[in-house]
């Protein structure tokens, strides 16, 4: 499945379809918290990250998440990806540890994905 850069809101149904085409219940995404866009799809978060880097994103603003479109909105995002391990930015785990950063990512995803 091709990786798509989402710049404007897409329907939740479109995300469900992407999930069905790969991992079933989940689609991988990388969010640019500065530009407020995200790359969705692909097998590896690093692949989506590479697409955004080619689109002039800066790595320090890119964070990997998993979106579960069938789950209720409050549980839809999982903040875990190997690309998130970034000791230089204070994140020493695959999980995004900074609560404010998680909120920022939630806001971007809410802006880009329909309810």
């Amino acid at each position, binding site marked *: 499945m091709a990786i798509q850069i989402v710049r404007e809101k897409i329907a939740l149904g479109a995300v469900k379809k992407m999930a069905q085409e790969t991992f079933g219940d989940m689609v991988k995404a990388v969010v640019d918290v500065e530009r407020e866009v995200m790359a969705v799809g692909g097998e590896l*978060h690093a692949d989506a990250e590479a697409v955004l880097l080619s689109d002039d994103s800066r790595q320090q603003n890119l964070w990997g998440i998993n979106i579960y479109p069938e789950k209720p909105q409050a549980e839809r995002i999982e903040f875990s990806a190997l690309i998130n391990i970034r000791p230089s930015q204070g994140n020493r785990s695959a999980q995004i540890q900074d609560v404010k950063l998680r909120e920022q990512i939630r806001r971007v995803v809410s802006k880009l994905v329909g309810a």
Partner: protein
Amino acid sequence: MDKEHWQKLSLVEQLGNIGAEISRARHWEEKGDVESRAKAIERALDLLSLTIADKRWRLRLKEPARLYEILCDVFAGKNTYNVRLQMLENYLSPFAFAARRDK
């Protein structure tokens, strides 16, 4: 695992198979069987080495290479990245699903 056979599998199949070894390692960890846990992780590292050596993925090595480092960290008991086998299993199990999806 024969290298030639391994390098005919898709990336998703390769990572799914590695996930199976991680599931085994976690199973042995729960049972308190340190030796069997270590052997399962060693097998996972061997398979991941074959994946990293697979020329088809040469432009997509960032994540497999990072996974290798994390798994070595888990194997050595260092816990540098605060990653447990359960988390690795959660990361790899979707690949197993995706690999079997069209079969």
